[in-house]
């Protein structure tokens, strides 16, 4: 369950944020996350940001995939 899509925060006003992806914008609530700033990516579920994506963690995620791949033929 739980459809959640990464969207970019383009504007913040108190606990409200405007998020955007592919030109589609929506006002969402930021009540469930802290330390968010404009330009950050958040995972949006049912109109609420449920996670702020940390660039370091995103890189770690991609590296994990690359490790598995380089362990075999792509190296």
């Amino acid at each position, binding site marked *: *369950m*739980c*459809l959640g*899509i990464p*969207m970019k925060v383009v504007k913040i006003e108190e606990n409200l944020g405007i998020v955007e*992806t*592919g*030109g*589609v*914008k*929506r*006002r969402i609530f930021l009540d469930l996350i802290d330390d968010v700033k404009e330009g950050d990516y958040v995972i*949006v*579920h*049912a109109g609420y940001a449920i996670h702020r994506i940390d660039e370091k963690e995103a890189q770690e995620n991609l590296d994990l995939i690359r490790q598995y791949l380089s362990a075999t033929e792509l190296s």
Partner: protein
Amino acid sequence: MKRERILMGHGSGGKLMRKLIKETFLKNLDNPFLSPLSDSAVIKMGKEKIAITTDSYVVSPPFFPGGDIGKLAVAGTANDLSVVGATPLFMTLSLVLEEGFPITDLERIIQSIKITAHEAAVDVVTGDTKVVEKGKGDGIFINTSGVGTIPEKISLSMEKIGIGDRIIVNGSIGDHGAAVMMMRSGFQFESDLISDCAPLYSLIQTLLKDNSGASSGIKFMRDPTRGGVAATLNEIAENRGLGVTIYENEIPVRDSVRSLCEILGLDPLYVANEGKVLIIVNRKKSERVLEIMRGHPLGREARIIGEIQEKPEKRVVLKTRYGTSRIVDLPEEEKLPRIC
């Protein structure tokens, strides 16, 4: 499950609607003109082939980015004539207005009808107005019927579709449905997305009148409105007992439509179009048809998105970008946004 009442799904272009047509309408009204269930009935009157069609428009809200219910009512009916190869000539206009509907809004809608009728080269020749009490309608409903003539040499039909034929679409899919969904109360999305609502007459005529021989390869056309591309292709597969294969990488979808679909858990293949046409063409003529389409403003982004194959019988298969396949089923009813 009890299903004795009309549900919204009965008007969605999916399986429920098909069942209603078969079990209620065809059962009572069947005749050789009705039974092909084509966009327009084709009737021979003396030497002349006449196409006749009717459609009701209930879009809510009546004004949406890229159009309004008036533009839709003219373009939609003209398109139903155009896709059977007819030259649209005359149209009727029937309005059901709800008590309290602003006359300025009506004026805007009628002006839009005037402009679109001009573009589609049809004349509104007769009309009717009814008013229902407040609460008994959704502002405005429009019915239009259209009549056109089909030149003698043109004969398009689903029956002509065969193995190897190519499927062409004139541009990105899902724009209309996505634009309207964005406007619906309760969703509160914003974007620069606009409906593709447009009369296809001039694009189709450019193709049919081409004298390089391309037009002879065109076998069948349909505008994939309600139920989207998925509904139209399923109808072809089922009717012909053949397989339809489409390629994910070839199907044009705008970023904004794709994004909205990701957010709401929808599939662009099921989202409605109002200015798109699917054309089934003989393989040998397909590149030429594509070339002609791309020379027209409504066909610049035209693509070959798939082909007719022997198998799987009566099924539409999508080849994903990873080379795997999935069945694209006929929609059951209106697709709703989901959270899970």
